[in-house]
């Protein structure tokens, strides 16, 4: 249930503005890859190109190739809706559907895929909530609204919702930035467990977090305001944080800028 991502020559635009330029990288299956870099360097934009969410913004477009195993997500015959079923996403702010119960939130993706059988849904909901380390806390109130949970629980609910459809890849866009340290720790532990099953890509502003959870780290930077963001280097996390090969990475990690 995990696939390799191969990106080559990828640029993304918002209207006439180029947000990221010529990015190429490989993300290994069953690993955690962290994207770090200063604000506005295009890490989130790049992340959103990996499940074709970038293009839902009016005027946004993408050039280049993203191969999931050997299939180009941007080939003309590929349906973006199908891509998003294969590549799941967790957002910066927890966004459970406020009009749905905890159960319905987790089952939402399955229902979209046309699965209606109660016994199947029950099993998947339980397994997904267990997978997101939320089952113990909510098993007694599955029919209560998802919006009534705490922020950290909501985010784990969103993770349960994302993994319920068994994606190949899980993208996380600063999943802990709206959470307190305890909830952050819970999510980080969860990421460690989830990487056994999924290919995980996480954007984070927190360098300690990148160092804690990821196997590989990619550093993004931009030459200046209005310039497109670029990938500076991608290496094993340990190497990035101890002995990066590019000076700019070291400057950023040691806090000399950004």
């Amino acid at each position, binding site marked *: 249930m995990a696939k390799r991502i191969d990106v080559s020559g990828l640029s993304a635009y918002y209207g006439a503005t180029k947000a990221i330029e010529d990015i190429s990288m490989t993300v290994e299956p069953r690993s955690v890859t962290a994207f770090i870099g200063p604000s506005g360097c295009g890490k989130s934009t790049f992340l959103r190109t990996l*499940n074709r*969410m970038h293009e*839902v913004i*009016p005027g946004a477009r993408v050039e280049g190739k993203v191969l999931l195993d050997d299939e180009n997500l941007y080939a003309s015959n590929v349906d973006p*809706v*199908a891509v*998003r*079923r294969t590549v*799941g*996403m967790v*957002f910066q*702010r927890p*966004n*459970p*559907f*406020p*009009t*749905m*119960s905890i159960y319905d939130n987790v089952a*939402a*993706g399955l229902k*979209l*895929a046309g699965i209606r059988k109660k016994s199947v849904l029950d099993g998947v909901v339980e397994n997904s909530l267990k997978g997101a380390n939320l089952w113990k806390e909510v098993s007694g109130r599955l029919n*209560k*609204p998802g*919006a*009534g949970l705490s922020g950290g629980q909501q985010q784990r609910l*969103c993770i349960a*919702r*994302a993994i319920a*459809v068994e994606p190949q890849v899980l993208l996380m866009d600063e999943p802990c930035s709206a959470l307190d340290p305890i909830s952050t720790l819970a999510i980080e532990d969860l990421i460690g467990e989830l990487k056994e099953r999924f290919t995980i890509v996480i954007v984070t502003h927190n360098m300690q977090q990148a160092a804690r959870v990821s196997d590989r780290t990619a550093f993004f930077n931009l030459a200046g305001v209005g310039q497109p963001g670029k990938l500076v280097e991608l290496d094993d996390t340990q190497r990035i944080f101890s002995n990066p090969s590019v000076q700019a990475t070291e400057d950023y990690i040691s806090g000399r800028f950004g």
Partner: protein
Amino acid sequence: MTSSTPDSSGGRTTTTPTGSLQGNSRRGDRLFFVASAGSGILLLVIMAAIAGFLLYRSGIALSKDQTNFFTTFEWDPDNILKPSFGIAVLTFGTIVSGCIAMVLAVPLAIAIALFISHYAPRKIAQPFAYLVDLLAAVPSIVYGLWGALFLVPHLAGLTSWMNTYLGWTYIFRTTHQGAPARNLFTTGILLAIMILPIITAVSREVFRQVPRSHEEAALALGATRWEMIRTAVLPFGRPGVISASMLGLGRALGETMAVAIVLSSSNVLSLHLLDAGGGTFAQNIALKYSEAGPAGKDALMASGLVLFVITLLVNGGARLIIARRKEYSGANA
């Protein structure tokens, strides 16, 4: 209708030049409190005055009524020998024409609102939205004239078609073929057109309020655009659409001039909606007021009170529906 008392500790504390922490009078706060609380109280007083007036005059009328007010068809309050009047026809006509209007207008309004908020490119959506707002500003008398001069003659064909093919439904059978389509069905269509803009405009604003993050959550799960709307937009907008529909229904129930022009007034209560004739509360008041004597005016007042109560009940029901699902409203998200 509650005016909350201002938090006395709220607001910015201005210190006196001497640096003392003793509060000054905060005249602005107090002035604003008096103004807002006063407006609230004034509104209550006006409402109470209207209700009291209606109740008093209705009481006079009802004490003179020689027949059952609720089941009588005819309207003859100024008959000195036997004043008799009832609201059966009016209640039926008002509710039926209002229901037809809602059934036709609400789905169409939701579709137009979704088109403007989620489907149309911005270049088209903007002028389109403006056009809808403009429709809401057309005076009802203009709608009425259009209804009488255009809709009634042009619906004759539809009426006979429905009689032929849908006559088996009983409600779409007509007993007098060829009569002008001045019936409850036509009235309902006209009311639907009249309330369409307001329902569309409010629904559109509600759909626009749906947080982008909810829409993206649905899209990221692999929802198509329509599935995204069904998963994230419609449930979030539900209370707002209900409120919008109630605004529209309120207008349909109370619509006067357009109905007075289009619907031929009669004391007939017919379940055949394509039969000419019938009546609504507002139409009846508009038509009868000028020639009504003192007793007649009181009787009209009583019918107005009933319309008032029906409107209150409808609104109360809508509020109940919204409140029942309050914890799912998304307001706390």
